[in-house]
């Protein structure tokens, strides 16, 4: 039994260890304990996708997972996309170039979804892109530009 525990995770290639309450969600752990505030919290019940991160290479909702469940896992957050020197990832550049963001609140989630989609399906067609993006909400209603951003990112990643 435990109400708190020690959690070891590797986030964006860096190892972390911390003691957390069992009831703490993974997104709160990332933001509050590790100071990685790029991942946003929107609805906190899995609907909006703002908190989407990668766990062992797959997108998950970090608001409906417990931090303790990530013990031993490899995580990637939006902070892991750009190069250490600050050079943007082609997905980020594409979102900038195609105006895939307005306020930017939903953007980290969209970027991580796009990251998994294009890593696994580099030739994703429009239908497939839409299916994946349907798991993320944007209140600035930028869907068309987001779709264009993902298409551009796909082209750039295929022809680096």
């Amino acid at each position, binding site marked *: 039994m435990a109400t708190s525990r020690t959690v070891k995770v590797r986030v964006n290639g860096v190892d972390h260890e911390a003691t957390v309450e*069992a009831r703490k969600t993974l997104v709160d752990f990332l933001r509050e304990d590790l100071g990685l505030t790029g991942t946003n919290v929107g609805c906190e*019940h*899995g609907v909006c996708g703002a908190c*989407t991160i990668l766990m062992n290479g797959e997108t998950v*909702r970090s608001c409906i*997972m*417990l931090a303790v469940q990530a013990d031993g896992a490899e995580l990637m957050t939006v902070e892991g996309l750009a190069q250490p020197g600050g050079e943007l990832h082609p997905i980020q550049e594409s979102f900038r170039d195609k105006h895939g963001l307005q306020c930017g609140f939903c953007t980290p989630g969209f970027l991580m*979804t796009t990251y998994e*989609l294009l890593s696994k399906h580099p030739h994703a067609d429009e239908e497939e892109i839409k*299916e994946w993006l349907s798991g993320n909400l944007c209140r600035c209603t930028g869907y068309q530009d987001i779709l264009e951003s993902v298409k551009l990112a796909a082209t750039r990643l295929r022809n680096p």
Partner: protein
Amino acid sequence: MKPPRFDYYDPRTLQEALEILDAHQGDGKVLAGGQSLMPLLNMRLARPKVVVDINRIQALSYIRPMESGVAIGANARQRALQQENLIAERLPLLREAAYYIAHPQIRSRGTICGSLAHADPAAELPALAMALDAELVATGLRGARTIPSDSFFLSFFTTDLQPNEILTEVRFPAPPKDMAWSILEVSRRHGDFALVGIVAGLAVDQERQAVTDARLIYFGVGPTPIRVKQAERALIGQRPAEAAWDAAARVAGQGIDPSNDIHATEEYRRAVAATLTKRALRAALGKLKDLNASTGSA
């Protein structure tokens, strides 16, 4: 930090998990994919004293062949429905259905058994279990019992599972070879729960040009998935064509009991159920024709 305080266990074996649940009769909750339980905890609609996380029980992570069909363990994720060759070969309907279950980012965690145990009447998997005559294996400290899907789902979010039991496996038998299946739903946004959904199965005697068997299961229109036998019977012996689909669609309305809620009225749901009946039967017939073309029969 939103969930209420609880004692957290993540046992490595089923035996341990069952012992913990048994010791906390009624106060313990199983945590599988968490894609339904965690929202309930975050909103404090559920306040279990004890959470038993079964994700670290390796022995429950499997999808394996049975003599006919597949057996799926409690830790198999919904994404596996799209990724496992065994599913594609033996139960292509499940693969097709996965597309309708939430989003890829949810299916990565959500489990197949979790959806069955949760028993949301608008969910796809309970309806698929009913349509395909799945069996559910509930394990407690005294052993396992096998429950047919038509007596597993009792009401809204209510199943035959006891608080000290874990749904350890679901068994989907391979459906009859001459039957073709389709699943369709109408929802507000792709990946949302269905306002109305249907799983339809159809078998046709090619020579006589007559329907020999039919299955019609509706979801989102009652407290559990609803099998409408009157509508199935309306199809038997009929020529597989629009007139028969129309008749089944008319009769279907008598078997379902949709409710009014903020998303749709009862009348709307009935109308959608009728339309989906026709579309699903057309789709199933189309697949039967493909099936026959590929096996070379008439």
